[in-house]
């Protein structure tokens, strides 16, 4: 220790001496002249390439890193966060399957930064400075064809825990459009950690807004859909994201009446912030020719993590029924997630790491796109293996002291999800939509994995129904209803399937259960009306259609059916008005057209 101290003192004396113009002595004294690390020559290229896109005005980072003095003001901090690999934020380990836009410093770059700071963070020769990075101002892909802005801003309080908020953007289009690129502008980027677009084709999310236009809270949202139209694109924003147009032929379909839901993760800043996101859409005249879909591996049912458990492992393994190209991957867990792994085992036994994140951080979750599509042949098993830490050692643990945590939608619950964007390849299109085969295989897999999983049975049933396998669908709906006898959605679906299969008598109890459990459930009243009318019980059907009409006053189908029931019980005048109203709403409403003509014939013949 003493020796060391003397050594330091001598060194500083030497430094002081060199002030008095002794550069000659210095070169003589240093045996191996490693060139001094300078900002202009060594550090600026790293910063400009890997930091400045976010560290500039208007972007997500809290301060700019564009000039020597910007970087000097944070030099030691930059040395710390790059050494810890906290910055730039890039969670996956290096692997043979490369990701696009990998944002990972090399070990050499990191040690250069350390040396630069240790050497006093000098600027260096002006002639060494590379040109300042150029950035596109405003919309990154030029003026969008359609800009959607959140109807009402959200006021984010100065403090408190992270907020998860969903903004709803109705898309004002009158006909189907094809979207080749989407740019998400999340509002003030400094306070939005990430944002994710979900496509809601049925207006299901609007019902969750307390006041129209304000959006609704919640970290995870589920959107019910009525036909087979699987999600296909991962539309994700994180700080530094530059929008990428979809590959040729893979445009996203948007229909009239579609809503885009922007799910945002917001972090308080210390002061009140106003967040009002917008979305830019870029259209193409080319309809999609390639139909990717999102495959979800998950095992939330296995998430029951005892308090204090440090290494709780959850797995899921799904074998592909068809050949696919894997385009992108999106792992998702909450605050207990620690080690996140996904891999593929090919039919020949080869194992490929798809992603490995050894130090999961929800704050930096992201969609990772592969630099090249990854071909996964039929028979490949895709696996996830997530490890959770519910001990006191996990500083992000939402409970202090730790508590038992189960799977769920709240941020204090846990999740085990892995989304894969896959494009079916080498399929025989005469055998139907390959996405249906994938979805059905996945639904069967989920039922086998967790026979007590309500959603697994329900989704398999819906899939089977979409593929016209009505009897098999009914069996799965029955299994779902057995698991949740009071679930209105499942009771209604079972009832509707039974009506479709020609068993209205069996359907009626389930439809009654659905409408009793959820009195404002339009579908349940409508389907119950149909079931009763099919049984010729028109007086019982009548109040169901009247209720349905009150719930959806602009539905041509209800108007037509209500008219039909009224006509059956001899109330012709009122029946006629409902047929006419149905045709006002939809001039092509067949039932109303036929019945109105029949009614007019009958009235004139009398």
């Amino acid at each position, binding site marked *: 220790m003493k020796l060391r101290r003397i050594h330091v003192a001598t060194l500083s004396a030497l430094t002081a001496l060199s*002030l*008095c*113009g002794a550069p000659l002595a210095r070169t003589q004294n240093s045996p191996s002249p490693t060139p001094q690390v300078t900002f202009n020559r060594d550090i600026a290229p790293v910063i400009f390439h890997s930091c400045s896109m976010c560290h500039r005005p208007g972007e997500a980072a*809290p*301060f700019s890193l564009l000039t020597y003095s910007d970087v*000097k*003001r*944070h*030099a*030691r*901090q930059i040395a*710390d*966060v790059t050494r*810890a690999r*906290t*910055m730039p*934020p890039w969670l996956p380990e290096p692997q043979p399957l490369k990701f696009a836009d990998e944002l990972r410093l090399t070990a050499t770059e990191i040690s250069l930064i350390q040396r630069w700071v240790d050497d006093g963070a000098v600027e260096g020769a002006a002639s060494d400075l590379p040109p300042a990075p150029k950035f596109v101002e405003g919309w990154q892909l030029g003026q969008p064809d359609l800009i959607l802005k959140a109807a009402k801003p959200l006021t984010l309080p*100065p*403090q408190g*825990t992270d907020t998860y908020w969903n903004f709803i953007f109705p898309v004002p289009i009158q006909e189907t459009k094809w979207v080749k690129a989407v740019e998400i502008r999340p509002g003030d980027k*400094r306070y939005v950690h990430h944002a994710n677009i979900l496509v809601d084709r049925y207006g299901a999310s609007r019902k969750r807004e307390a006041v129209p236009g304000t959006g609704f809270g919640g970290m995870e949202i589920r959107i019910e859909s009525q036909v087979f139209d699987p999600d296909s694109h991962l539309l994700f924003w994180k700080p530094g994201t530059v929008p990428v147009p979809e590959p040729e032929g893979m445009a996203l379909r948007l229909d009239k009446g579609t809503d885009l839901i922007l799910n945002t993760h917001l972090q*308080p*800043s*210390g*002061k009140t912030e106003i967040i009002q996101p917008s979305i830019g859409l870029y259209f193409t005249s080319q309809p999609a020719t390639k139909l990717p879909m999102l495959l979800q591996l998950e095992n939330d049912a296995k998430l029951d993590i005892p308090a204090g458990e440090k290494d709780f492992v959850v797995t899921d393994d799904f074998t592909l029924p068809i050949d696919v190209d894997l385009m992108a991957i999106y792992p998702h867990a909450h*605050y207990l997630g620690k080690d996140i792994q996904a891999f593929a085992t090919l039919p020949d036994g080869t194992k490929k790491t798809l992603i490995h994140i050894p130090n999961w*951080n929800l*704050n*930096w979750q992201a969609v990772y796109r592969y630099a090249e599509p990854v071909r996964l042949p039929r028979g490949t098993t895709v696996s996830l293996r997530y490890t959770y830490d519910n001990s006191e050692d996990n*500083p*992000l*643990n*939402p409970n*202090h002291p730790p508590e038992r945590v189960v799977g769920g939608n709240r941020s204090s619950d846990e999740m085990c999800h892995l989304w894969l964007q896959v494009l079916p390849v080498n399929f025989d299109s005469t055998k139907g939509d390959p996405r249906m085969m994938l979805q059905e295989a996945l639904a069967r897999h989920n039922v086998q994995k967790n026979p007590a999983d309500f959603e697994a049975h329900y989704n398999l049933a819906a899939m089977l129904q979409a593929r016209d396998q009505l009897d098999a669908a009914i069996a799965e709906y029955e299994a779902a209803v057995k698991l949740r006898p009071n679930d209105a959605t499942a009771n209604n679906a079972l009832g509707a399937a039974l009506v479709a299969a020609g068993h209205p008598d069996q359907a009626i109890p389930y439809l009654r259960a659905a409408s009793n459990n959820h009195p404002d459930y339009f579908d349940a009243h409508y389907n119950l009306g149909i079931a009763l009318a099919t049984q010729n019980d028109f007086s019982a059907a009548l109040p169901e259609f009247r209720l349905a009409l009150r719930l959806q006053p602009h539905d041509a189908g209800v108007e037509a059916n209500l008219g039909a029931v009224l006509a059956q019980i001899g109330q012709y005048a009122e029946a006629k008005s409902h047929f006419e109203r149905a045709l006002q709403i939809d001039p092509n409403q067949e039932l109303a057209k036929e019945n109105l003509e029949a009614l007019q014939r009958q009235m004139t013949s009398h």
Partner: protein
Amino acid sequence: MASPPRNRCSAGFLLTVLLALSAMAQQSALDLDGKPVDPLKAAKGKIAVLVFLRRDCPVSSRYAPTIQALARKFSDTATFWLVDPDKNDSPSDIRAYLDQYQYHLPALRDPAHALAKSAHVQITPEAAVFNRAGQLVYDGRIDDWFIEVGRSRPAPTTHELEDAIRAAAAGQPVARSEVRGVGCYLSDLE
């Protein structure tokens, strides 16, 4: 003709003296009107708490509601000062920041880091607690909310600054007199 090395040497010496003089002139902290202030004297027998902030440090900024709440909670026993160690910040920059973050606390500029040195503070946000006798009894983080830059707990589990103020108010020794914070280095501003 004097030999060139000598000339260079004396020029270097002169420069050093000038630097030292200008540092002397800015030794004390200044209030936003430019008047030198000694916060320990101004505390007039109360406990003095100095909280060091950088406007461009997001960790500092996220603490604004916590700091304001602590100052309110201990208003009877402790005088709080916000200290800005960034020599490039003008009084109007600081006023605008205080306004944005709804601070109702007096602020000081510490361009030569004189206060920071006497408070042993190295990072923003860190605080220093001086007891009624003007002795430094605690310097370091406010609590353990942040684990590292960009990674914070859902809520802090320790409250070092609050504990230190309570101990100083009761005339008790502080359990841990120095716990380094997470945030931005003062030395990066030199």
